[in-house]
């Protein structure tokens, strides 16, 4: 068996998040693999539908809840279209975990600010649950999450769950024009709302993930709030094939995103050529 051969996983649950995003819950078929499998928040895997190919997503479930892993994907290409067709009980493939991770353990005792947009909540969600499951190890938690429209918000039930908790501040927003008459949350772009929520930067780190334009405009806001570049973490998306630093397509500068990433600090990103 080579490093390119996936493990077989069974789809144990299929959850429609939005009209074009879906979560799958996967269980390793091989018992020993299931027992041995471990990962860190922020790592990714290669999910395969045999006949369509492999696609790269982060693992969206937290390592604190072993047994099954989850992924969340948007319907954009060949593999995600095929993934859309799989049903509970079907077999797909998984390779991973790959890449580096958010240094959650280093953040003990700190405040954590989560900033996410659209499907970018998936990798952040992994960290959120990881930290919520070890709640007393961390300081204040703030989640700022937005999507284009109400319909495009992913993990809606969990957003409600977080909003109901009093040990985490959860602000959900939709872009102007994306609200419905029933919408009770905020209306505004994520960077704007982030500036309004204005979490303290003292002894805090920020985790940010979302569309490039959201990240681009959120960095200055975080900077203004006093977050140092090495306290801001994000996760990069690049086209990948092998996931293990061989196939050569995720190079940015001298970085292999699949090995040195996908998690980078803003400080690291600023040193990279803008080729992502």
């Amino acid at each position, binding site marked *: *068996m*080579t*490093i*390119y*051969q*996936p493990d*077989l996983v069974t789809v144990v649950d299929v959850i429609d998040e939005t009209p074009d995003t879906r979560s799958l819950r996967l269980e390793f078929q091989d018992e020993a693999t299931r027992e041995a499998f471990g990962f860190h928040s922020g790592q990714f895997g290669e999910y*395969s539908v*045999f*006949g*369509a*190919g*492999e*696609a790269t997503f982060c693992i969206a479930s937290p390592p604190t809840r072993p047994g099954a892993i989850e992924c969340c994907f948007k319907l*954009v*290409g*060949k593999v*995600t279209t095929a993934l859309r067709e799989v049903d509970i*009980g*079907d*077999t797909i*493939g998984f390779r991973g975990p790959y890449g580096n991770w958010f240094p959650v353990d280093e953040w003990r005792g700190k405040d954590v600010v989560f900033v996410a947009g659209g499907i970018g909540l998936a990798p952040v969600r992994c960290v959120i649950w990881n930290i919520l499951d070890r709640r007393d190890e961390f300081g204040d938690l703030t989640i700022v999450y937005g999507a284009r429209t109400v319909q495009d918000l992913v993990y809606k039930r969990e957003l409600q769950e977080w909003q109901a908790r009093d040990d985490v501040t959860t602000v959900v927003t939709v872009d102007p024009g994306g609200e419905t008459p029933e919408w009770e949350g905020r209306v505004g772009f994520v960077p704007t709302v982030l500036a309004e929520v204005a979490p303290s930067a003292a002894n805090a780190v920020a985790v940010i993930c979302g569309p*490039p334009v959201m990240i681009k405009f959120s960095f200055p806001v975080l900077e203004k709030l006093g977050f140092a570049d090495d306290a801001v973490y994000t996760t990069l*998306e*690049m*086209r990948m*094939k*092998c996931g*293990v*630093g*061989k*196939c*050569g*397509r995720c*190079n*940015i*500068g*001298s970085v*292999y995103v699949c*090995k040195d990433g996908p998690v980078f600090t803003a400080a690291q990103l600023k040193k990279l*050529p803008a*080729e*992502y």
Partner: protein
Amino acid sequence: MSDERHADELYLTEESLTRLVDELLTAGTEVIAPAVTGSCASPAAIASAACLRPGAAPELIEYAALHDASQMALGRGLPNLSLKGFFLPQEEALVSWRRRGTGLELRGPRVDAPSRIALGVKPCDAAALEIVDKVMNWDTKDELWNGRREATTVFTLACPVEDESCFCAAVGGTPDGTRGADGLFTPVEGGYMVQATTDKGRAFIDSHLAAHAGEPAQSDSLRRQAAGFRSAARERIAGHLAIDGPAIRDWVAANFDDPLLTSLGIRCNGCGACTSVCPTCHCFDIVDEPDGVSCGTRRRCWDTCQTGRFTSHASGHNPREDQNVRFRQRINHKFAIYPLRFGEILCTGCGRCTRVCHAGQDLVEILSEIDDAARRGRPAVTADSDGGGEG
């Protein structure tokens, strides 16, 4: 550099080499060597009549798994494609699947290749193997590559010919090198002087080659001949191109947006021919190919950074939108990324990319220009340097 290895040298006549190869083939051992393949395997009449263009080279030299010793064409020009296809095939199965109900059965390829011999390999092609070893073995190990590497005993042949596009000496190679190989053949009168440089090479000599070797008494003058041949080859190549690798590495890494680097692709057609023929280009794609409804094969095949498809995201976003930046990536990967990451220039100076490019992209020329800029210590340009022509 190899003169101190004299003591181990053996003399092998052309005839005994032929006998040795035939013996190996008879025993079922795969022998890889440069061979005249024609342009195709069709009956010679068709090939000569229809396939060969008037004026084109009458013979195509390729590394091939030999059927018999007479095919061998040692010491001719550079084979058309490099040796890399024998280690990273143009396409190979990674896993096959078969559906059974809702379940699946997977089958992986064998990773333990049967042992084989590669003879008459160009030193630039052998060196590439050791360079690519690095990326195939950092952290995770590529079993398919490693399996073939371990199974293969490689003997280089000191280069009898070069042309204006060869520049192995500029990137740390030498035309009589054994890097990535287990031993060296040097052409001498009537045959070759053979020496081993690794245990694997010595084992091959002891078990197979020694029995065919000629009289030791002959050897002294032959040794001198061989040493002369090698030093002549080194002298010839030395004048071709001289670059300062580390300076280029640092300059390219620091001057990513310099107009010199952002206008390289203007005449480039964006085909992947240069990467296909390159002995060190190793980027690959992984594709699923159904062979039927319920079964199929996932294959890995060569890919190239020179196409837009290489980096385009499913969303439509493409970090490398035009040929200028794609060509910069090729230079960057070879002369900055790989050296920074693995301590090796990802180029062995074989010159194939230059020869194969009919648009006139010329790596020798490009490297001289970058080397010039690097040596002059040209400062980083930060202003808008969005493409622009040359001149």
